[in-house]
């Protein structure tokens, strides 16, 4: 009696695990099946290179791919040094309560809803950018990247700090013992010994930046063009899905957003694989 009950529960465990894993596959399957008509006729290349002009029968998502990469890479360009600086501040430079407080603040930041960044972005950052550069509408790649920087930095900072903390203390003591300073210890021992962690943190944050919808949707301007400057309006793959999803379900226009979905899915998968490979490297490094 008890054995059968236990057996049933254990079957539920197995079922749940495989169900959850299968879900990942099913999501991709849905994207592929619904996006297929657009991709099937050997049009992958044209989808990737054409502009978006549904009334001309062009459903290329190239402007969106470029927009996504521009906004997320720019935000990483801002966020990486900023996060590294903050991580150094928390783990090396400041001490005791200050360090603890900074860390808690950063942890707290991970809980701020994305939509809040978008909302404040519209009413605070966009006018500032417009006034400062006195050109364009302020809804642009730069504004979105700046707000995204705030969104992704905490992830990176915490990951960096954790990687620094994993470096065995004995290594650092060796530097201090021969008269090195804390900062020398950091640059000669801690940083070189934690670089896989730093790269993983960067990759995770890049994933967040690529996948975010609301910030770009609210403050990047959403113009369907390939942005030429930081002050140009742009549209990301994610906001493209949000803007077009309500079109006719039969139309190629609608199917094109599944192409966006597939791209986002593939981006994610590549980043996850990268993190895994680096993770293996990190294990080896730690040994």
């Amino acid at each position, binding site marked *: 009696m008890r054995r059968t009950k236990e057996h049933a529960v254990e079957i539920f465990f197995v079922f749940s695990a*495989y169900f*959850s894993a299968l879900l990942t596959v099913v999501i991709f399957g*849905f994207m592929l099946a619904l996006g297929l008509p657009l991709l099937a006729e050997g049009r992958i290349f044209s989808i990737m290179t054409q502009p978006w002009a549904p009334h001309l029968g062009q459903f290329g998502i190239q402007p969106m791919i470029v927009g996504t990469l521009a906004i997320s890479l720019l935000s990483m360009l801002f966020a990486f040094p900023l996060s590294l600086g*903050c991580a150094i*501040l928390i783990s090396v430079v400041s001490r005791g309560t200050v360090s603890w407080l900074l860390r808690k603040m950063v942890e707290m930041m991970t809980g701020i*809803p994305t939509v809040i960044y978008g909302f404040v972005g519209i009413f605070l950052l966009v006018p500032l950018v417009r006034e400062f550069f006195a050109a364009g509408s302020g809804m642009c790649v730069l504004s979105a990247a700046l707000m995204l920087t705030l969104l992704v930095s905490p992830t990176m900072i915490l990951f960096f700090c954790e990687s620094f903390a994993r470096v065995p203390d004995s290594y650092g003591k060796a530097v201090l013992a021969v008269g090195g300073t804390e900062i020398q210890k950091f640059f000669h021992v801690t940083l070189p010994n934690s670089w896989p962690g730093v790269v993983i943190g960067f990759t995770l944050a890049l994933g967040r930046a690529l996948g*975010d*919808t609301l910030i770009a949707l609210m403050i990047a301007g959403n113009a369907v063009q390939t942005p030429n400057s930081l002050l140009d309006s742009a549209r990301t793959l994610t906001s493209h899905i949000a803007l077009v999803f309500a079109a006719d379900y039969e139309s190629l226009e609608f199917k094109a957003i*599944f192409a966006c979905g597939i791209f986002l899915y593939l981006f994610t998968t590549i980043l996850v694989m990268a993190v*895994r490979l680096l993770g293996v490297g990190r294990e080896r490094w730690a040994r």
Partner: protein
Amino acid sequence: MGEVRRLQEAGVLVFSWLCGVLLLGAVIAVIGYLFVHGWRSISLSLIFGATPPLDALLMKRHVFNGLFPAVVGTLSLIVLSVCWAIPIGMASGIYLAEYAGAGTKAFLNLFFDILAGLPSIVVGLFGFSAAIFLNRLFPGSIHPCLLISSIALAFLVLPYIIRTTQMALEGLPLSARLTALSLGASKLQNITHVLLPQSLSGIVSGVILAIGRCAEDTAVIMLTGVVASAGVPRSLFSHYEALPFYIYYISSQYTDREELATGYGAAIILLCICMVLFLTAFVIKRQVSYHALYRA
């Protein structure tokens, strides 16, 4: 030589403090801006509009021009999503930590990593197309609604719950694992009587963070059934309102200053909800480390 070194060190110091000040300054600017512009709109009428609060709470009357339906919508979303996600997520986490072999674990973890990394809009798109698909299959029965949104959100937070359950269980020392077994407990008894209770705080803090994710997510729900105005949802198959979507909606559709002010109010409320959730998780988690320190 020493001079150069001292300059370099000073440079690093200045740079790191600059980064810290910049980041915290930016965040304080964001939150401060919100509060400076929004605190005036915080009042009972922000939530309940012109309806007497008691009537609204007892569902006697609809609330218009108030956030009450959005608050209720968000709460129902959270409760439903977590209800779907907890059993499946915990069961998967238990399987990974206690039953799966190393190979199976690595294999399944790859899928969960991808699921965890998926942009929420992709999960939303999946929910939406699944609803359309079901609507084709059973005409008129399924359309984007509270149920679809909550299931899609559950998929979004599933990996969080799986991961925290797995980590909490795997973090237990071997001695904790062997005690009950040596007393004649079966594997499942050991899990339910000893291992789960001991890792509960870790799991609970993970669940709370998942709740925060449900509360803040906008991309999933905007594709799966949230609307601008619906009143309090009456059933799983109703359209509904939600705080984050309300904020997005107001930011793009406001017609006058007063309506915009409610957007600020909603943003403050959502921020407070998320911060309270975060603090709760933190308090629970800190107690864990406290215990661990004492036991070691």
